[in-house]
Every structure is written in structure tokens, then in C-alpha cells.
């Protein structure tokens, strides 16, 4: 007999506010499934932090858990101190691309550098969705948006690569067309230490697809599948060939001393010497 999975027990009895067909339903579901498959009966061992934007609404207040919904871009500093004062809890940040690598980019780089013991899951819809579809640091080159009506003149940021370069313990990228891989990646990240980052390229039919010229959700998902290139494949490709592609897979996994380990080792040392 197969067990019937229900996410209900992990969620408050509230309705998600996302547009019909939003990729964030899939992301929320992948996270809850990962938690369920790891054997957590509830979310009492977790604290969720998020900023402002559609992705930030995934945990707040919908997860039946402690959630701290911070200002636009500021979830990572808040998550940092929560983890430092409560190292026993698993601190997970949800945020969008504008939140994490737009207005909050400095915190993202610094947290990766410090190897801060948090998992950051970024729903990357490649646009400012909540405000109605303005160009983002993640918008593909030449894409038409509400503030780039003639096509974006900037190239997007490779957030997952940046996290790896800055010192993350784990960095991966998937899309909402890779839900099984995404779920397995979340499971793995939840069991690792240090700064872990998962970028989830997520379909936004309302603010992105409509303006960028996608007819429907199926077309968006199809484009994710067609443009997806594995990390291994990408290594053999030239930069020009990678333009417009989505590199999926694990970009880095490494063991480095974490911020919590370093802070508490210092505290122990200082107190021992003071006696």
C-alpha cells in the first residue's frame, strides 16, 4: 500500500495567495515533501525567515512553524542571528531573486563567506513579480519586462555560482520542471552544515511569462526543460554557448568550518582562558 502524502499537517489552515499556476506552489510542495521524507512529523525544529516578495510568502505565515517575515532583502541577517543564538534550530530562508540577490545581495555574499549555518532557498522567477513584472538582476538578456519594454540591456547574475565562489558549503540550481531533483537536493541540503543555497528557477506566468512572450505555463516549463544543461555538460561548453541556458545540478559541495562552529569555539576558548 502506498502512503498518501498530505502537506496539510505542516501548513496553517490558510489559503496561499499565489496566482493560479504559480511555480511557488511546486516549490512549497517540494520543501514540505522533503521535510516529510526526512521523517519530521512537524516543523518544530525549524525557524523560517523570509523577506518581501512572492517567494517570501511561502513560509509566512502559511507554514505551521515559527516564521519571521523581515523587510525586503534583510532575511539573511535576521536568520544569521537567530541561528547564532539558537544553534539547535534549523534555520531556513525563503526569498525571491529580487530579495536575495537584488536588494539583499551583500548579505547573501557575506553569509556565504562566513559559511553561516542557514539554508537559503531562492525562488528565481527572473522578475519582480509582486510589483507587476519589472526587470530584475536575474532577468535574461533582451527580455521584455514592465521596465525594459525594449528588452533588458543587462546580463543576469549567476547566483548559484556566486554562492559557490563566495564560500558556500553547498550550492545547487534546479527549476520547477525538475521537482524530484529539487526535493532530493533540499533533503541533502537540510542534512549538511554551513551556508547552503538552492536556486529554483520558477515559472511565473503572470508577471514574467506574459511579458516575456510565453503563451502559457506549459510553454514556460517546456523552455526550462529545453534550456536546462547539467553542470557536467556546462563544463564542456563555451561561455557563448551557455547564453540563455539554465545550468542545473550541484555547483559545489564542500566542508568548511561554519560560523556557528567558529563562534562557539572562540567563546569556549575565551571563557577557559578567563578562568
Amino acid at each position: 500500500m502506498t502512503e498518501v502524502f498530505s502537506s496539510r499537517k505542516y501548513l496553517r489552515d490558510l489559503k496561499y495567495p499565489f496566482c493560479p499556476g504559480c511555480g511557488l506552489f511546486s516549490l512549497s510542495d517540494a520543501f514540505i515533501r522533503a521535510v516529510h521524507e526526512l521523517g519530521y512529523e512537524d516543523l518544530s525544529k525549524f525557524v523560517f525567515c523570509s523577506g518581501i516578495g512572492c517567494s517570501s510568502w511561502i513560509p509566512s505565515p502559511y507554514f505551521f512553524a515559527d516564521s519571521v517575515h523581515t523587510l525586503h532583502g534583510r532575511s539573511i541577517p535576521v536568520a544569521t542571528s537567530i541561528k547564532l543564538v539558537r544553534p539547535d534550530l534549523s534555520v531556513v530562508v525563503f526569498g525571491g531573486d529580487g530579495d536575495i540577490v537584488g536588494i539583499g545581495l551583500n548579505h547573501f555574499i557575506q553569509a556565504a563567506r562566513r559559511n553561516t549555518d542557514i539554508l537559503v532557498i531562492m525562488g528565481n522567477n527572473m522578475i519582480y513579480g509582486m510589483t507587476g513584472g519589472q526587470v530584475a538582476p536575474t532577468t535574461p538578456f533582451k527580455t521584455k519586462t514592465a521596465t525594459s519594454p525594449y528588452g533588458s540591456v543587462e546580463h543576469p547574475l549567476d547566483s548559484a555560482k556566486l554562492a559557490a565562489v563566495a564560500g558556500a558549503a553547498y550550492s545547487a540550481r534546479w527549476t520547477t520542471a525538475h521537482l524530484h531533483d529539487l526535493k532530493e537536493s533540499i533533503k541533502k541540503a537540510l542534512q549538511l552544515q554551513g551556508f547552503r543555497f538552492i536556486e529554483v528557477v520558477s515559472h511565473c506566468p503572470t508577471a514574467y511569462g506574459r511579458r516575456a512572450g510565453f503563451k502559457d505555463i506549459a510553454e514556460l516549463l517546456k523552455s526550462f526543460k529545453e534550456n536546462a544543461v547539467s553542470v557536467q555538460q556546462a563544463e564542456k561548453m563555451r561561455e557563448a554557448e551557455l547564453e540563455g541556458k539554465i545550468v542545473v545540478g550541484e555547483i559545489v559541495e564542500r566542508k568548511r568550518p561554519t560560523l556557528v562552529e567558529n563562534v562557539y569555539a572562540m567563546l569556549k576558548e575565551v571563557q577557559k582562558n578567563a578562568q
Partner: protein
Amino acid sequence: MKRRDVKAYFWSGNEACVEAAINVGCRFFAGYPITPATEIAENMSARLPLVGGIFMQMEDELASIGAIMGASWGGKKAMTATSGPGFSLMQETIGWGFMTETPCVIVDVQRAGPGTGQATKCGQGDVMQARWGTHGDYTAISLCPNSVHEIFDLTIRAFNLAEKYRTPVTLLTDEIIAHLREQVFIPPPESIEIINRKKPKAGDQAFFGSEEVAPMPSVGEGFNVAVTASTHDEYGVRFTADPLVHRRMVEKINNKIKKNADDIVETESYNLDDCKVGIVAYGATSRAIYEAVEEAAKKGVKVGYVRLKTLWPFAEKAVQRLAKTADKIIVPEMNLGQVVNEVKRVACTTEVIPLNKIGGGELITPEEILAKIVGGS
């Protein structure tokens, strides 16, 4: 208390602030270097680990204020320290703190602005920013010491008020008293009054928007608390369009401070009911009023004063009393006139005379105040 129980130290204002914070139970500090507040971070980085506390130098003031909010929800008493430019950067998150009712202490060691201004020189230009710096409707608490010893006392009080009323509290010092060294007498720790936030009982679910100050859970205590600075109901659930929920919650968050103004407002008053001339002063500037009052008395002019130890909420009752008796009120400030307008609002028909000086960290002298007392406006 016996004399031998009291310990004497020769501290700078910034050092006194750190020692008071450690005494009152601050166990998390996040900050970013900035003149003239840096010594607070430096001393905190040395002192906190010794008592098991955590110090973090963050990447900027945005991260610093965010981190102390997080630490507060993690159950710690938390503080940051900065000066004008950093205080400006922190304003958005201070508003987050008002809306989420997060206890924390922000020390603003004022310097001359605007912009980079004169980073090493004293100013009092942040007093209105402390009241109205963030957007929206809120009632701020700011304390304003005028000596090194008072920095110690009011740092403790800042934490106590933050915990009691579940709100950010600003300790508004300035470059002069922060870098001044004076003798500080510290009572034994057990005689220092310490107030801790009200904790919820098992089964409690309403953690926001009570005029009686709602109990505050920490994360990880099993209360499934949903913290948000979007308009929310008593249970933390967002209502981003409902006019009634917004009115109810924002009014209550304001009222919990306003209705307790008598408890929060502290002044040093003199001759309120028997004076010809009044002075309203605060911070480093107020150190000059005592000599001016003495000299005026020698000339036969009775002067009364209200020294604002609590700057916000404004000491309306004391200033009203002064305005009833005095023919004119002098407001010396190291800015081009900020609190003077608040005095005018409260004093109604009594003549209010500003006395302003900015630049180079030059204090307003007793002679300058005396000239206003005996002279005309």
C-alpha cells in the same frame, strides 16, 4: 547600601554604555564601525564573549539592525550602536521593530550632519529622526543622557523600557558625552532593577497588538509564532488590505506607549513653579544650564528648567508647568532648531526662544545661555 558596595570607575561614555548593557543582560550585539560610536562595538567584542554573549560585526548597518531583531526573537536582549549616517540606514528596520513589537536598544552617538558632516564633532541633529525617522505611525521612545554616569543609568533603563513595552528604544547620546571620561559609581549588580519581557503561557496564541503589551514567545519554544511587519492581527496573520485591522493594530501599538507616558517620561526639573525664565535642554548641551541658572540668580533672575532625560515621548506635563510660570523659555540645541518646535507646541502662548549652535563640536556656553536669560529674544 554601604559605601564599600559601590564601585567607582573612570569610564568614557561609550564604555559606560557597554558596561551597563552587560549588567542589564544584553547578550547579543551587532554593529558596524562608525565614528563616534565605534568604541561601543570594540568594547562589546571584548566583553560579550566573557559572559557567553555573541558579538557580530556585520557588513553594514542594515544587517546590524536586522541581526539584533533576529536575536531578540531568539530570546536575547540585543543592542546595536551607531551614529547619524548609520542611524539613517537603520530606520526602515526600526519601523519593522515597532510593527512587530520587538524589544531592542539602538544607541545613536550623535555627530554633526547632514551627510558625512563632521564625523568627529558633536551635534544634536538626530533628535527628530529618533522620533520620526521611519515611515508610518508609531510612538518612539528615546532617552537622552547628559553625563557618563547617566549613560550607564539610561542604558539600563533603555533595555528595561524595551522589554516592558516590547518596542525598540533609542539611546540618544552625543560625541561629547560618549568620549568624555568621568567617574561612574556602579551599585552592586543585585541592586540594579532589571525588567524582562513577559513570556506566554502554554496555549497562548495572541502575541501582538495589545495595549497591555502582549506576551512575547521566542522562536523554538513551540508557539509557532508568525512574525511580520505587514499589517497583521493578534495572531500574526497578515491583513494587507483590511482597514479595520490596520486601524486597530496600529492604534494599539501606539497606545501601549502613549498611555504609559507618565511611566516612561523622566525629567530633571528645577523651580518649575517659581521662575521668570525657563530653559528646556537635553544631552551635552544641558550641562551648561546649571552655571547659567546660578549666574542668573546672582543677578536676581529666577530661572527654572526641564532637562529631558526622556526625549520621546515628549515631557508635555513638565514643560506645560514651566510655561505657566515662566515669561519665556529658552531652548539651547546643537542643531538649527528641532526640539524648540515641540516646546512651542506645548508652551502655547509663552514666548519660546531658540539658542542654536552648530559646527566644530563647539558647546553652547553658560554665558550664551545667560545672555538669552537676561537679554531679550
